[in-house]
């Protein structure tokens, strides 16, 4: 069963990646597109394929995987299906860090300042959430703390962008709150991929510890899980992935909520299986959303977060309702 599921997932990822490379306003035939991408024969077509569409497709996969895996890890650690990086303010705080790095000129002075600043913002938010929600992650405190952190990060992001001397900055509040992959370049791939890869390694290596944690903290500790180390891995892993993803694509919400929710019944409740599956599922979801924004409004920059929220928010309401029925809220 699980092997079939992985096969379907990987096939979907490959199919959607190809579709993402073939869809665009330049009007290339599939043959021209493939030839330009692989052989690089015609200059214009090659630039379109290698410098515009390829980074976009790669970033959709990286950002999606980061958000899906980040969500599954937060939920595994807090043992709460409502914990999602976007909803609890981790993405928003990462965006604030990124905006600060851009507007202070740090990002222009050093190329890695942007992802590091976003990572710092994300670390801060994860620490605040963990401190407020406590180790068990009670739903009410988690959501309330998340609302407060998101609201503050969003307000400060708007403030920084409104104070910028650049006349375009203020109009980009929407980008930082909703996310988009339009006109990104390979530079964005290079600055985000190492952080996302490192975060993924950290989180995936903790799969068995997350499994043990489903039995409760005491049981996990008695099985030899070092809870302090697990928490550190969670903070660094989630912040690294979500920070880098947000630095290049803005804050895209609900991916980390929708994907683990759909996959949990399919792969079983074991986090060690859910974590990699959510990375794959997140990549598929963001690829789909990024293709959809180009098909629905090809001439406008429709934000990814708009689509993920339309899918994710009703699901979030459903989850709250279910949690209440179970008497956990």
């Amino acid at each position, binding site marked *: 069963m699980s092997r079939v599921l992985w096969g379907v997932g990987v096939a979907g990822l490959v199919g959607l990646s190809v579709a993402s490379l073939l869809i*665009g*306003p*330049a*009007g290339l035939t599939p043959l021209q597109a493939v030839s330009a991408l692989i052989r690089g024969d015609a*200059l*214009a*077509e090659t*630039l*379109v394929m290698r*410098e*515009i*569409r390829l980074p976009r497709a790669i970033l959709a996969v990286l950002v999606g995987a980061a958000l899906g895996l980040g969500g599954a890890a937060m939920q595994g650690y807090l043992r709460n299906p409502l914990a999602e990086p976007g909803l609890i303010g981790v993405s928003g705080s990462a965006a604030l860090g990124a905006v600060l790095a*851009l*507007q202070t*000129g740090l*990002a*222009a002075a050093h190329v890695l300042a942007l992802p590091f600043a976003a990572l710092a913002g994300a670390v801060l938010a994860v620490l605040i959430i963990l401190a407020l929600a406590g180790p068990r992650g009670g739903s009410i405190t988690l959501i309330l703390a998340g609302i407060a952190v998101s609201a503050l990060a969003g307000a400060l992001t708007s403030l920084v962008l409104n104070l*910028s*001397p*650049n*006349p*375009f*900055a203020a*109009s*980009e509040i929407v*980008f930082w709150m909703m996310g988009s992959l339009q*006109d990104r*370049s*390979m*530079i964005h791939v290079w600055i985000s991929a190492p952080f996302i890869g490192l975060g993924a390694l950290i989180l995936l290596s903790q799969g068995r510890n997350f499994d043990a944690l489903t039995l409760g903290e005491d049981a996990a500790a008695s099985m030899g899980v070092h809870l302090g180390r697990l928490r550190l891995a969670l903070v660094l892993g989630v912040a690294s992935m979500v920070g880098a993803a947000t630095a290049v694509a803005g804050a895209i919400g609900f991916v980390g909520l929708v994907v683990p929710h759909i996959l949990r019944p399919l792969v079983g409740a074991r986090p060690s299986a859910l974590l990699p599956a959510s990375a794959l599922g997140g990549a598929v979801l963001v690829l789909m959303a990024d293709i959809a924004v180009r098909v629905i409004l*090809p*001439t406008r920059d429709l934000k990814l977060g708009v689509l993920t929220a339309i899918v994710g928010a009703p699901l979030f309401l459903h989850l709250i309702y279910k949690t209440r029925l179970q008497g956990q809220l």
Partner: protein
Amino acid sequence: MKLTAPLTGPSTLALRRVSKALGAALALWAGAALAGPPERVVSINLCTDQLAMMLAAPGQLISVSHISHDPNVSVMLEQAQNYPVNYGQGEEVFQLSPDLVLAGTFTSSYTVSLLRRLGVEVAQLPIVNSLDAIPDNILEVGRLLGREVEAIALVAQFEADLTALRADSSDMRAALHYANNYTSGERSLAHEILTAAGFANVAAEAGLVGGGTLAMERLVMLMPDLVISGQPYPGASRSEDVLHHPAMDALRARHAAHALADAEWVCGTPAVLRAIARLAMLHEGG
């Protein structure tokens, strides 16, 4: 009828009062119009700032818009620094007690109607979309300021310079590329600057009319010989990231020549001649 009489009484009175006030205002306005050129002129639009500075008599122009002090868009920075600035707000402008306010068609309609309600004469000048419309604009400002002679001289100079500058059209194709992939197609001042300098505009080839966005993919596919970028502003923005996207840099790297669309491209004033001259030079050199 009798019952309604007490009601109509005061209302007709009010009406009479209004019409009396209107009459007085009209008389005042007519008086001002007859009294000769305005003595206190305030400009609240970057483009009217420039025409007013070129044409006004000494002391006639008492304030220009703060945008005239922005080096990114203002071509007459040094001259503008001799004038106090305004931020185009109704209350602030009214306080200067102007007898003429020069504004653009897209100046906030609230500000314009507020000033008019307060009895200030406001002239709104249209956006200039072609080189041919520049003389009309100069003459209009000249008429408003009572400086017709100076305006006619300026127009004559402009037209002579333009005729001398106009380059033969060639097969060199240029693209304008601003923040957010904004560009200018046919029926825009930037398009006419390009064509006057002998370049074909690729955005017009793509069917764009006026200003608008053209996806970077499409711009790359059009393979322009010259990419003319917008001037980057201080501070950072994602909108301006597209100006130095690797794909655009690769297009630029194909030719040695490159150019910046700066303040000289913004307004329909004789400053566009300098933009045309610089472009035409590139064209001959490249």
